[in-house]
């Protein structure tokens, strides 16, 4: 384990503030947590007496359950605060919500919010660490960590690997956090999308390669990740039809044939089968999609342990 890594009391807004040594430590701890998940008795007493609050202003049952189960496996108490849908209503005050929860003795916040930058705002009202579980189209660092762990676990490293992310890059916080994290760990990242779904200047911002032809994008890849396409992008006029999208950017058998023999196929879920990914690919031996879910739980356990397990060093605000 890397020396001098101390994540106690740290916030996780995005991976830009985490070093490669810290990410490596998270991976190693994740491996331990994964072995615990796999045994018959899956609970450990590590965070007994700690309270984790999940603050979800946006619907995401999957992510919320994953965090809450992670906390429970570590014997922490969980407060679940959901306010989906009402987040942009007038008169809603995040400040009051956080003050109230803080008064109840929360030790760590997990926040999902439709508005980018909100995790940092929560930390403005509370001195407790904040974990970003997705803020608007900005960042989703725990998803990126689990994606990266899934590759790291199979390939032993990310350094020098070629990773391709295909889909609606423009609206994807998963893609953004992965670009930051994977580059940090030494991978070469290619993003692939129609031009209307590609963020401007992405090559400059993240040091990744933008490719518009799926066949070219996957040829050299060690891992290919498909992103979920939201149906409403069509009505927003960003691409002509799901049919055409699927034909040009869907991962199907023909695409898989162009890849390396040991390529990993990934998807953050939930999948639109038959649109961005086809069953013959999603269920192939290359796919680690189901394992990503387990890894998600393990990564979140690792983070909760690393951040809450220990006396918090005084953080300078």
């Amino acid at each position, binding site marked *: 384990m890397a020396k001098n890594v*101390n994540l106690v009391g740290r916030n996780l807004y995005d991976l830009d503030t985490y070093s490669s040594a810290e990410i490596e430590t998270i991976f190693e701890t994740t491996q331990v947590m994964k072995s615990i998940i796999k045994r018959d008795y899956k609970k*450990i007493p590590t965070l007994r007496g700690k309270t984790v609050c999940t603050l979800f202003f946006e619907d995401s049952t999957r992510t919320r359950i994953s965090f809450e189960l992670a906390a429970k496996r570590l014997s922490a108490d969980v407060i679940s605060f959901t306010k989906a849908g009402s987040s942009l209503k007038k008169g809603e005050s995040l400040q009051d919500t956080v003050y109230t929860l803080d008064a109840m003795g929360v030790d760590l916040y997990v926040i999902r919010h439709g508005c980018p930058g909100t995790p940092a705002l929560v930390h403005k009202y509370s001195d407790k660490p904040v974990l970003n579980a997705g803020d608007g189209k900005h960042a989703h660092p725990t998803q990126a960590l689990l994606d990266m762990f899934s590759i790291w676990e199979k390939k032993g490293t990310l350094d020098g690997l070629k990773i391709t992310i295909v889909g609606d890059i423009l609206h994807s916080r998963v893609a953004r956090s992965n670009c930051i994290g994977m580059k940090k760990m030494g991978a070469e990242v290619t993003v692939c999308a129609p031009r209307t779904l590609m963020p401007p200047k992405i090559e400059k911002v993240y040091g990744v390669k933008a490719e518009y032809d799926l066949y070219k994008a996957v040829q050299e890849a060690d891992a290919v990740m498909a992103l979920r396409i939201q149906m409403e992008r069509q009505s927003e006029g960003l691409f002509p039809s799901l049919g055409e999208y699927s034909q040009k950017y869907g991962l199907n058998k023909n695409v898989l044939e162009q890849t390396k023999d040991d390529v990993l196929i990934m998807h953050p879920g939930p999948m639109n089968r038959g649109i961005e990914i086809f069953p013959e690919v999603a269920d192939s031996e290359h796919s680690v999609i189901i394992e990503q879910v387990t890894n998600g739980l393990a990564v979140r356990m690792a983070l909760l*342990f*690393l951040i809450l397990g220990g*006396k918090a060093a005084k953080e300078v605000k």
Partner: protein
Amino acid sequence: MKFKRRIIDKIELDRILKRMANEVIERNKDYEDLYIVGIHTRGVPLAKRVASYIEEFEDVELQVGALDVTLYRDDLNNIEHQPKIKDSILRFDIEGKKILLVDDVLNTGRTVRAALNALIDYGRPRSIQLMVVVDRGNRELPIQADYVGKKVPTSHNEVIRLYLSDYDEKEEVDIFETEK
């Protein structure tokens, strides 16, 4: 930290381990259900060492595992540095088995308490025995070892350190005094 004196040298350490191996043999008769588990960090090579002596004396093969108790510690709130976890390796089912826990030093008893809890989360062993090289007193919990290499009464400002050739350049047990 100031070196005070050596309390066990290389030869004596080897003699102690052999002696304790014999005690285990005497007490356990059959080895089918006996699994040896070392507590990270120093307990792991000690467990291997003791196991190899029993194997040598009795011509049997034993299962040896490693247990990390970090996740079971009760003092996580008080440690300043990031606790490091090592993977617990128990490649066997402990259900109904006799477990021999091995550690280097028995002090407050809290590490052993954590190890007992950790072990029990893996299953329900028939019995658990405890072996330590040094028992330095200062117990805070009602825990006693079944096999003790040497009893060394110490005060709170003293630290006992076991060196093993698996990790270190020497093999001995030293006592240090912390400056306060």
